[in-house]
């Protein structure tokens, strides 16, 4: 499969909610999409395009928005593809990919714990690296490196 074929089939199906299919070194491409079509897009990628394996889910805080990205692998075409979407920083919520790819479970917990992205429909969205009750999402740009003594007080205040 080529990148322009992928772009053509995706825009035929989802229209302008596919924001672009860019070149990306080492991958088939980078698909930017509107977060409202997340579940349908995931299903299309797994069932129709045969991207059977979700390699990772990650999130980045870009201050004015939060980016969530998914790396998929196709056993049929032996390529990776990157899906990426932007969420507003005040309500970073997106549908969970766990019903499509169960391997998303731990990755989404990590993205929630460190970057504060909420995944709707995740079966068990708990913190994974930080203790329960921790008040921050430490990979946000707004998180300050604490003096250790401050950190201790803040962790224990829950």
């Amino acid at each position, binding site marked *: 499969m080529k990148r322009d074929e992928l772009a053509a089939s995706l825009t035929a199906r989802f229209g302008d909610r596919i924001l672009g299919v860019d070149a990306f070194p080492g991958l088939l491409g980078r698909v930017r999409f509107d977060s409202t079509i997340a579940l349908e897009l995931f299903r299309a990628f797994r069932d129709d395009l045969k991207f059977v394996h979700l390699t990772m889910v990650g999130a980045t805080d870009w201050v004015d928005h939060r980016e969530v990205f998914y790396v998929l692998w196709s056993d049929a075409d032996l390529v990776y593809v990157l899906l990426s979407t932007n969420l507003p920083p005040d309500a970073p919520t997106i549908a969970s990919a766990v019903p499509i790819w169960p391997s998303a479970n731990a990755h989404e917990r990590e993205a929630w714990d460190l970057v504060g992205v909420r995944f709707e429909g995740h079966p068990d969205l708990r913190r994974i*690296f930080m*203790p329960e009750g921790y008040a921050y999402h430490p990979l946000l740009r707004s998180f300050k490196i604490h003096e*250790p003594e401050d950190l*201790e007080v803040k962790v224990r205040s829950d």
Partner: protein
Amino acid sequence: MSGQVPAAPKAGNPPAAPAQIADMPLEVIGQPGVPFVEIETLRAREFIPAAKEALSSLLKEQAEGKLIRPVFNWAGRNSLFPLHWGLACCAIEFAAAFGARWDAERFGVVPRSSPRQCDLLIVNGTVTWKVAHKLITLYEQMPEPKWAIAMGNCATGGGPFRTAYSVVPGVDKLIPVDVYIAGCPPRPENMLDGILRLEQLIKERGA
């Protein structure tokens, strides 16, 4: 006869003068001239009566309200049972210290794997906030008297991760620590030195 130390028959040394155990300076315990070492010179047949006599004099002392702490102190500090909590790279160095080359067991230190069997907690590695409460649980599961060693810069003060969001900046935020061993990681010699210092500390401070 109370408090009198039975001299070992047929011992090479002249018999020790009778002494009150409770009055003995700590260093005397375990030195030649007091019973616990001369026991080694006894024949098997003589051992049981001598041990009986020594024991009954100790018990008599205890009944009279004189503490026999020095004995426990001596016995305890020479046979520490560490629970080692290997969380990171320092655990490798800990393993080396207890391996064939440095052989920490010659100091009577034998690592065990259950906190119920241990009186010394050695924290070697980076403690994160996620497991912090488990460290406290382990420490509380150990029977008294107990001690703790923070091995390595991470356990001592957070080490290279001191300002990280996930790392406890020193396990003394969680449990009382008796000896800190610096280094990243400390050499096995350093580990042995820490154990010997802890033994010294127990000797001076009492159990």
